[in-house]
């Protein structure tokens, strides 16, 4: 099965522009904000129907925050999010409810994302009740959902702790699917799973996309997995997207020095070539998002030979080439 080409001529399903989410750090006698965590600081991308956009980056760079801000599980600080042409930030309560029928999220932690005191059946049925779906045959629909994600009717009366990690992740997906959304944010849906089980879930997601025509925002830090599932990939660093391109382009020819380092750091399950491979080992740690460096956020760790003082003062403009390959680095080689 190979991926069908995505039609990017129409309107994007999701359009995120200059999205910012800043968390105040409170202190002082009256809880004044004494600083901010610049968790997401100007993220822009579009997502077309049927497409999978991979979002990768190191821990704490703002991937989850981006995802949650899109669904307004967090209030964005600035920027705009348009879902199917509608401004998400302007939605009232009813509008939000409608949005949440169309856009759903699957979480990383297979243990924390299910209510331990609710049976699987009750959990899935609740969403249907709230949204008044399938009122005549809820149970049937619930069983259908279970089967859809590869579980069986007999699992209906069980509780989350009786399932393995992979099964729980399936349940999370079933719950997201229960409201029949068009768009799923997958926030590291398989990171917590073992490789053998990871593959099962990835395949399930793949099937669902094929069958239901879903659009995915796939958040992960496992680069090879993202490469496998995504049409396009965005690389985040410290709250910003530093590179966004077609998956193949990006993996074959990464242009941003950070992307390059990131890709080279991934251990390959291939002992034969290990001597030959050239690895860029970055020095230092990711800076704190509450105290980001000036200029290009990556400059303190950047190994690029052409790094100059401009990098330390001005944040580079994100430039795109004709093939839609966006890079935020003046020295990026095209």
């Amino acid at each position, binding site marked *: 099965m190979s991926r069908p080409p995505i039609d990017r001529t129409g309107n994007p399903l999701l359009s995120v522009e200059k999205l910012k989410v800043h968390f105040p750090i409170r202190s002082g006698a009256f809880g004044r904000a004494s600083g901010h965590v610049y968790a997401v600081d100007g993220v822009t991308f579009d997502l077309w129907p049927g497409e999978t956009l991979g979002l990768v980056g190191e821990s704490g760079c703002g991937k989850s925050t981006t995802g*949650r801000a899109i*669904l307004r*599980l967090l209030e964005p600080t600035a920027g705009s999010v348009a879902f199917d042409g509608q401004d998400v930030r302007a939605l009232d309560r009813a509008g*939000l*409810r409608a949005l*949440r*029928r169309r856009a*759903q*999220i699957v*979480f*990383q*932690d297979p243990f*924390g*994302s*299910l*209510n*331990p*005191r*609710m*049976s*699987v059946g009750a959990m899935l049925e*609740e*969403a249907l009740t*709230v*949204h008044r779906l399938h009122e005549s045959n809820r149970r049937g629909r619930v069983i259908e959902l279970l089967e859809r994600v590869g579980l069986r009717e*007999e699992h209906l*009366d*069980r*509780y989350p*702790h*009786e399932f393995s990690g992979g099964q729980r992740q399936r349940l*999370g997906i079933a*719950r*997201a699917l*229960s*409201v029949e959304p068009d768009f799923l944010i997958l926030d590291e849906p398989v990171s917590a799973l073992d490789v053998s089980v990871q593959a099962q879930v990835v395949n399930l997601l793949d099937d669902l996309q094929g069958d239901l025509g879903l659009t995915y925002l796939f958040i992960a830090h496992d680069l090879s997995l993202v490469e496998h599932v995504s049409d396009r990939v965005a690389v985040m660093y410290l709250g910003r997207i530093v590179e966004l391109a077609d998956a193949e382009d990006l993996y074959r020819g990464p242009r941003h020095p950070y992307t390059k380092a990131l890709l080279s750091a991934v251990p390959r399950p291939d002992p034969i070539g290990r001597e030959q491979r050239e690895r860029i080992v970055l020095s230092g740690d990711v800076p704190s998002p509450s105290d980001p460096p000036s200029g290009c956020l990556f400059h303190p760790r950047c190994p690029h030979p052409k790094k100059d003082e401009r990098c330390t003062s001005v944040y580079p403009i994100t430039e795109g080439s004709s093939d839609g390959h966006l890079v935020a680095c003046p020295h990026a080689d095209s």
Partner: protein
Amino acid sequence: MSDERRDGAAWARVVSAVLPGLPQLLRGRVGSGGILLTSWLLLGAVFVRGPGHVLAALTGSWDERVAGWTVLAGLIAVWTWSGVDVKRSHEASTRGMSQWQLATRAFSKNRMAVVGLILIVLLYLVALVTPLIAPHHPNEQYDLASMRLIGLSATHPLGTDQLARDVLSRILYGARISLSIGFVAVGISVTIGTFVGAIAGFFGGVVDSVIMRFVDMVISFPRLVLLIAIVAAFDRSFFLIIIVLGLTLWPSTARLVRAEVLSLREREFIQAARALGFSKRRILVGHLIPNAVPPVIVAATLGIGNTIVLEAGLSFLSLGVQAPTASWGSMIADGRAHMFNAWWLSTFPGLAIVFTVLAFNLVGDGLRDALDPRLRS
């Protein structure tokens, strides 16, 4: 199901019909078996002691009616429950085990806690059927001049008090008062505490600040002042004591629940519920509170014990229940004047409190272990 097992089931059902709880006990389910069997034997004993008595009680005074019907209802309930339980445990269940069931199982493995639970069940049973088993009326005064402060004897197994009343009967009736005070007061405070704590934790921000400041104030507030003022301002009654005590435990419950809700609020299943467009009320009531309940149950169990002790403290300060009603606390407080020469007056109610509170604490500790998945494995 194999033949052998079916035979086993039939046999067990027969045994269960005669002595409910025994099959469970034989299978090693000490918890439910023990409770069923002891309640059966106890209620049976009351019935056998005087079937006429029980039947008369069914139409007697309010107190007696409660007792009589309790005996009957208890016998029927124990009998059916055991039967159903035996039957069910032989049917392979396709249903999953909920957290509650898991906890029950973990709990029933804890010997001390089960002993505590049996004790509590016994106590409540005794409290309910007291009119049928107490040898004397609790306020009946025998000859003041000759029957005061008589030591242990056949007619007064635990002696008589300063007004020539039967101590055993007063302890039995006192159980009703002390246990209900504990139970109801804790019920009130836990309800308030859970509600307040959940609201503070869930809504956060200003609501939280205001509520928690208030809770801080209540906690640092010298409770006694309030207590005395209330007791002084109103006519003393059983309900006043309950309300006064009910108002004491809630701040700590509120803190507990708030902390729990705060941590739950960040859990992904709550995020998922929000993402599914559930209303705040639904999330709070349907998802947050049920998950915050286990620590509350533990606190409540321990709280009942504490409240019984607290009531004793109030009695010491002459703020307890209205005489001649006996509560354990007031019995010790009244009996302390006779500590040197009528030791039984304060000792027996004292022991009753100690063992009751001990039982509640054992159960509370057991529940804590059973309800906390981290401690369960």
